[in-house]
């Protein structure tokens, strides 16, 4: 049993180093690597009375059984297929989230944290949380602004939930699709390039949006330079992490294409953050801060965005 234990532990350590050196290995499924050692441990551990020929027979039998099992992978339309994407524990999800908060150049997220087990739980619920947090904090900002300046018309603004949801989910699914397609195309041209699977790309983008959740919550503080500072910090962290994650794949390509791809990724991320800031947390233009005599001239259903320090400076 000690030998079996050494085998499994050794494989665990070497796999990540192997994956770092040979990115192509990342596309193999984990069960392929495990099956030769998996049933060897069973054969050795199950009894010392087996002769050499019987061990070989056992191995071939078990290999045949395991291959059959692999061929019976659940089909696209079965529930079991999707269940394989939610095969994560709480500690794994928390570990992946922590991995996004600390970008380290040599520590690739996909190889060290995902380890060929991309999940859909993280991306889906992080996007849902971000969409609702955006809508709720934007509403809360309006409420707090109305508390300071009673001339602002407060309304629940429920349509922002719909807008936020559609924006976030489109970003988190369409951009990884485009990136994956582009990487596949480049792999067709440069054969030695590695690539991520579609689910790994979705995972990368989904987890990268996690930093925006505390950023949006900190945008409640109505000081504009602080808001821009937090936005810049979070965007820098998230974009750096994205670049570090994509770099091992992209560095195999020509410098021009690599630079163009990475700058496109960073630009799209920045556009998302900027769009959220401007749409959900608008700064009030000065013509709305008129004396009350002119207020009735405004149409009643114009949305009055929340005030920012211009009103605080005048009050």
């Amino acid at each position: 049993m000690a030998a079996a234990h050494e085998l499994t532990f050794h494989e665990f350590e070497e796999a990540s180093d192997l994956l770092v050196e040979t990115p192509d290995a990342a596309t193999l499924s984990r069960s392929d690597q495990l099956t030769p050692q998996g049933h060897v441990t069973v054969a050795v551990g199950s009894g010392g009375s087996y002769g050499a020929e019987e061990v070989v027979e056992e191995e071939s039998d078990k290999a045949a059984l395991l291959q059959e099992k692999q061929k019976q992978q659940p089909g696209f339309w079965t529930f079991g297929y999707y269940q394989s994407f939610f095969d994560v524990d709480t500690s794994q999800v928390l570990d992946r989230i922590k991995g996004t908060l600390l970008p380290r150049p040599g520590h690739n997220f996909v190889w060290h944290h995902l380890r060929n087990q991309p999940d859909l739980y993280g991306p889906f619920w992080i996007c849902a949380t971000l969409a609702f947090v955006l809508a709720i904090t934007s509403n809360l900002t309006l409420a707090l602004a109305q508390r300071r300046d009673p001339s602002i018309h407060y309304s629940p603004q429920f349509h922002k939930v719909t807008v936020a949801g559609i924006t976030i989910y489109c970003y988190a699914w369409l951009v990884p699709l485009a990136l994956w397609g582009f990487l596949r195309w480049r792999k067709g041209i440069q054969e030695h390039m590695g690539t991520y699977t579609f689910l790994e790309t979705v995972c990368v983008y989904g987890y990268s949006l996690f930093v925006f959740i505390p950023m949006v919550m900190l945008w409640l503080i109505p000081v504009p330079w602080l808001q821009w500072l937090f936005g810049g910090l979070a965007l820098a962290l998230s974009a750096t992490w994205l670049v570090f994650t994509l770099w091992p794949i992209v560095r195999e390509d020509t410098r021009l294409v690599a630079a163009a791809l990475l700058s496109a990724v960073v630009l799209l991320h920045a556009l998302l953050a900027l769009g959220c800031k401007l749409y959900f947390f608008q700064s009030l233009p000065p013509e709305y801060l008129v004396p009350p005599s002119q207020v009735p001239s405004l149409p009643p259903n114009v949305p009055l965005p929340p005030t920012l320090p211009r009103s605080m400076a005048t009050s």
Partner: protein
Amino acid sequence: MAEAAESPGNAGTASPRPLFAGLSDISISQDIPVEGEITIPVRSQIREFDSSTLNESVQNTIMRDLKAVGKKFMHVLYPRKSNTLLRDWDLWGPLILCVTLALMLQRGSADSEKDGGPQFAEVFVIVWFGAVTITLNSKLLGGNISFFQSLCVLGYCILPLTVAMLICRLVLLAEPGPVNFMVRLFVVIVMFAWSIVASTAFLADSQPPNRKALAVYPVFLFYFVISWMILTFTPQ
């Protein structure tokens, strides 16, 4: 039987006797009743039950369903570890609660068509699609609860928030001000906590232990969004 037990011991010395040869000497006392029916008696009872629900009056049917819904409301209001919500699930309660909540949350006047609170359909969609998403999530994570049981539990646990909505509407009839808001905030927070406790009391056991937090977090988000809709409701 003692003869049969001793016979293997004597097998070497005496001629082998057939097994169970001694049984023919045992006589059955006339006092022990051996006869009975082979058919399962429950079956006939079920048949009687079925035909009786077809012939009963409409009032009986409605009252029976209302009593079942009311009993489940009591289980939600005083959450204990019981299986009633899971065993006899029904979706009448969630439907009644969702319709009540959506009607109360609907913005009244037509002037703020873009900026107002949620429409009836939006609340309905959020409640039902939210519950379906959470159920799918918990099933995908490996929980052993059925689809409709989970929908039933999530729907019934909206009851405290519906009560909060009623209270908020009553409080809003008074004059607006910070005290008004504080009272509403307090009520909504208490009812939100009650909903979470009630639903986790029923749902938490169905998940594998290392994924409980993963399954409970979407429930938290769901009730948080509903509480937010209730708190920000302003009558026009």
